[in-house]
């Protein structure tokens, strides 16, 4: 047991380091404008190699799918998300980053920032709502053709080459996480370049369902989902439950179990028994004005 935990920690540390190294190397490549300079890159196995910038073409970063079938997910991982509502000021950058990365058409959002009405006398709050990737998902239960399914790393994905468009999953999802391609999709041409995988959900197809996919292609490479990396407040943490670690856009890596315990984390509509993989930290000591509040109100502590 103790050994297991040490293992997890070690792995977590390694992954975090790799993620940081990967991100910095990527930034270096992007910044490189000078020719005839070799650039350090992270090689498989953790080695640092050197390549000429001419060997690097600058186009949208489109890694391959973590799992070519799109059905199995990454072995040994349990992706998990923690959203700190105290840090969320409702700016909508997560929605924007996600929309841009997945070519989401206007009017549709995979992670909208909802305004939750306050309960009783309490204040309303901003509430980013991705797919909850439930461990007991009501959506996959009702799918007649196994077009939406749960992978071993915990994500709930949709195969739009399989989906028959019955929309039972949309009716079944209590969180409204699912959208339907009612008409012919209007994807930009770039969307077709990468080929299709349930791991990123584009190019879209008419008459099929789509939703937030937890960016498993990024996760497999130790990168944060677009919403998380796009959040200027660092409110969206993402990580691996097995490693007991989550990271936000500020590079802050926290022990998952401690974070959830210390901050009284909860899962939305827990009573429905869907076992979401997205936890929320209540907006205690909110750092930003709540919906409908001014900055002055917030400073006074809402009094």
């Amino acid at each position: 047991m103790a050994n297991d935990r040490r293992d997890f920690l070690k792995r977590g540390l390694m992954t975090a380091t790799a993620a940081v190294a990967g991100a910095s190397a990527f930034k270096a490549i992007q910044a490189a404008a000078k020719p005839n300079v070799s650039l350090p890159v992270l090689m498989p196995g953790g080695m640092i190699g050197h390549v000429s910038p001419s060997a690097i073409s600058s186009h949208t970063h489109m890694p391959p799918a973590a799992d070519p079938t799109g059905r199995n997910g990454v072995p040994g991982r349990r992706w998990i998300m923690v959203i700190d509502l105290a840090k969320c000021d409702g700016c909508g950058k997560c929605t924007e980053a996600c929309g841009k990365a997945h070519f989401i058409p206007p009017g549709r959002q995979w992670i909208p920032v909802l305004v939750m009405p306050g309960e009783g006398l309490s204040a309303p709050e901003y509430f980013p709502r991705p797919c909850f990737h439930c461990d007991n998902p009501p959506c996959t239960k009702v799918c007649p053709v196994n077009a939406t399914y749960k992978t071993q790393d915990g994500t709930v994905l949709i195969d739009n080459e399989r989906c028959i468009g019955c929309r039972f999953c949309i009716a079944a999802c209590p969180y409204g996480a699912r959208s339907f391609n009612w008409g012919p999709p209007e994807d930009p041409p770039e969307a077709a370049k990468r080929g299709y995988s349930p791991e990123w959900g584009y190019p879209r197809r008419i008459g099929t369902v789509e939703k937030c996919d937890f960016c498993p292609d990024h996760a497999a490479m130790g990168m944060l989902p677009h919403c998380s990396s796009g959040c200027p407040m660092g409110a969206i943490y993402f990580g691996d439950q097995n490693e007991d670690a989550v990271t936000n856009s500020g590079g802050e890596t926290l022990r998952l179990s401690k974070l959830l315990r210390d901050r009284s984390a909860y899962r939305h509509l827990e009573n429905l028994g869907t076992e979401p993989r997205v936890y929320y930290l209540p907006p205690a000591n909110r750092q930003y004005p709540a919906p409908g509040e001014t900055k002055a109100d917030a400073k006074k502590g809402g009094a």
Partner: protein
Amino acid sequence: MSSPAFNSHGPLASTDAQVTDDLIATLGRPSLFHKTWVISLALVALWGAVCYLYQVKNGLAVTAMNDYFCWGVYIINFVFFIGISMAGTLISAMLRLTGAEWRRPITRMAEGITLFALMIAGPMIIIDMGRPDRFLHVLLYGRLQSPILWDVLSLTTYMAGSTIYLYLPLIPDMAILRDHSTNFSPWRRRLYTILALGWKGSPAQHHALERALSVMAVVIIPVAVSIHTVTAWIFGMTLRPGWHSTIIGPDFVVGALYSGIAAVIVAMAIFRKAFHLEDYLKLEHFKKLGLLLLAVGIAYLYFTVNNFAGSTYVTGTEERSLLQSIFGGTYAIQFWTMVIVGLLVPCLLLALPWTRTLAGIVFASVLINIGMWLMRFIIIVPTLSVPFMPTPVGKHLAYVPTFVEWSITFGGFAAFGLLYTLFSKVFPIISIWEIIEGRAVAAAVERKH
């Protein structure tokens, strides 16, 4: 009231030959009105088909459905037609099993409603699909855990069963028509000869037929109950308020009986008038079915009260908004119309002796069918208007069906009418041999007294 054996199948003081001639006459040359009726139905059905092609080309975006109202009139039509398909089983199988003599002139038209209602209900599901081209995925990748698979299995079983159940008692009639071949054109003669399966009316054949009918009558009832139950479970197996209810299965079964019997009464009234069958479909038949309808109507009223009673008293937030929208909000007009026009008024018309006339019973049945379509609307749409999560800022939730949706809906109803009408011109809409058999039974009873 007439004698217990219902001794008056057909005109008084008539012979079996006369009855046969009477009923064969319904297959005669169609009147001008009949032709106009068929052409009108065909045109409406064709228009529905054109609209469907338009929908296939442009996607479900041509409907008013959206990510909140993910189901609309197509599913309402599906549930409605599944509902009236109950007619055939109930009238035919239950009355046959209990030996109710008065069933004889009604069974075939009831069984016809079942088959043709299913022939509309099935396609309605395909019309609702975003990818009808992937229909075969249901067979290739079907998950038995999904309520949709239960519905597919139940629907196909029911359809096969009701086809057999319609065909079996048709065999002796096919032989009668074959033997009256001088009346018919060559294609009809060939059709009737093939479908008669060499029926000679021998005692052994009669015995085999009776056995097959008894077995089918027993088998078809649970299948029919299953289809209404699993259709209800499509809704009941979700977490949504208004759907996630323990009585939604039986509620659908009773609702189906209610609309099914009403549909049979409307069909009886139309055939009675169109084919001059006053001597066969008598006031007695309407009154007996009317009383059955009343009993089921009261049961449905009871279920409807039960559906809302608990959640009116104590309720969660989503359920409260649901009840508010149904009782006094967006959907109040549809709901109260259903309660008054579809439940209270018809039950009153059927209960009071002085309104339990032919006109009163038929009028009540028409009201019930309108009310039951509205009830399907009330079951499906308001629940979708109360999501668990607040909607993204600026989103307004509304579902008003588009012209395409209405066109396909009316097209579906027209196609149902068309199939039923064409059927009634090719096959005797009243079972000839069963009427004759009934006359023999009645005569035997009379001799005993």
